[in-house]
């Protein structure tokens, strides 16, 4: 049976681990709330933007061809991986890397063999995971989550969009965790560029005679990159909320597990203590008997 002091030390260490995981869970919960707030803050902007794009393109005569809509034979691929900067959040980051690799293998295997699949990582963990798998990783936008705001994400989006327009990439895809609820994250693979044109929702045809300044087409070309940036920003925000949700559940489980472990250890501790006491009594009784029989 284990030695008393050893068991006591283990109990102390498990106890402090449990305190840490408990604190991390609480921190994640607070951050999750803030992340969800950020999503709700962004929503009216995104909604209004797409509404505006709808009304303006309904007014625009010709289908405007934007450089972002150009579909080309796929030579170069850019995968944008949205992960987290920190670990201890369960399978959150691994899932993204796995999904990205699966996507590359099934869709862009040829390009991968030629080495023309590039990876842009938003979040340190994704960069590490993809570098381990032998991809060239663009790490310009790795530390996004320290101070998450639209302006940092915007830079990443602009870099991807510039690359697409210049022909560095022929297709840009985003892999991220969509936030469903605290316990559930759904991996999404979305094509960002070229734009997949969705048919304009019927019924929004302009019944108001707007004055368009400078003109419908110019406004549309101005709005399209904005919606692209918002698309990436949304992915990043969703991922951020998912991260904290995943960490919360992971830390909750860890706290539970530590509790179980503590229970077991306490049992062992008590048993050992009892055994030691019994042994001592036996020794005393034995000693007394030896004395009295003399």
């Amino acid at each position, binding site marked *: 049976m284990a030695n008393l002091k050893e068991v006591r030390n283990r109990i102390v260490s498990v106890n402090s681990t449990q305190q840490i995981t408990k604190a991390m869970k609480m921190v994640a919960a607070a951050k999750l709330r803030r992340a969800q707030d950020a999503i709700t803050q962004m929503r*009216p902007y995104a909604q209004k*933007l797409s509404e505006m794009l709808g009304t303006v393109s309904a007014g625009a005569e010709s289908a405007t061809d934007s450089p972002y809509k150009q579909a080309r034979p796929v030579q170069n691929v850019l995968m944008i991986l949205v992960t987290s900067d920190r670990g201890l959040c369960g399978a959150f980051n691994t899932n993204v890397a796995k999904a990205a690799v699966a996507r590359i293998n099934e869709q862009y295997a040829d390009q991968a063999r030629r080495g023309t699949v590039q990876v842009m990582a938003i979040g340190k963990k994704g960069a590490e995971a993809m570098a381990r798998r032998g991809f060239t990783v663009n790490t310009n936008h790795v530390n996004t989550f320290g101070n998450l705001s*639209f302006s940092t994400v915007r830079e990443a989006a602009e870099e991807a969009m510039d690359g697409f327009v210049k022909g560095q990439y022929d297709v840009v895809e985003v892999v991220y965790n969509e936030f469903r609820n605290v316990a559930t994250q759904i991996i999404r693979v979305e094509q960002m560029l070229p734009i997949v044109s969705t048919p304009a929702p019927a019924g929004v045809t302009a019944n108001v005679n707007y004055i368009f300044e400078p003109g419908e087409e110019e*406004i549309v070309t101005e709005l399209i990159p*904005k919606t692209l940036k918002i698309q990436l920003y949304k992915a990043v925000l969703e991922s951020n909320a998912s991260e904290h949700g995943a960490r919360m559940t992971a830390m909750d489980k860890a706290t539970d597990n530590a509790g179980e472990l503590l229970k077991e250890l306490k049992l062992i501790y008590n048993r050992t203590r009892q055994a030691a006491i019994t042994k001592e009594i036996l020794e005393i009784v034995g000693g007394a008997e030896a004395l009295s029989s003399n």
Partner: protein
Amino acid sequence: MGLRISDWLTRAYSGVGQSEIRNPKSKIVMQLDIITPDRKVFSGEASSVTFPGSEGQFQVLNDHAPLVSTLARGPVTVVTATGQQMFTVDGGVVEVLRNKVLVLAEAVLAA
């Protein structure tokens, strides 16, 4: 845009702004929202807003015709009941519809 008598009467009948009836000179206000992806920068009533349009500066007053315009980088000046406020936007779009003014800016640099 000046306030014509006919406008004023419709307004009086539709019950908008009782104070205007007593004091026709007071300006009828528009609802102005300036939003960025990160936050709502301004939400409130304004009597006049000046924009840095991509084709030149322009001002929006009460009862402006429906308008959608792109904005250049520059100051948006808002006149409210309490005074004047200025926001510097880094490009964006503005929509004016039925006395609701909505500004979508990617970033507001300084308030």
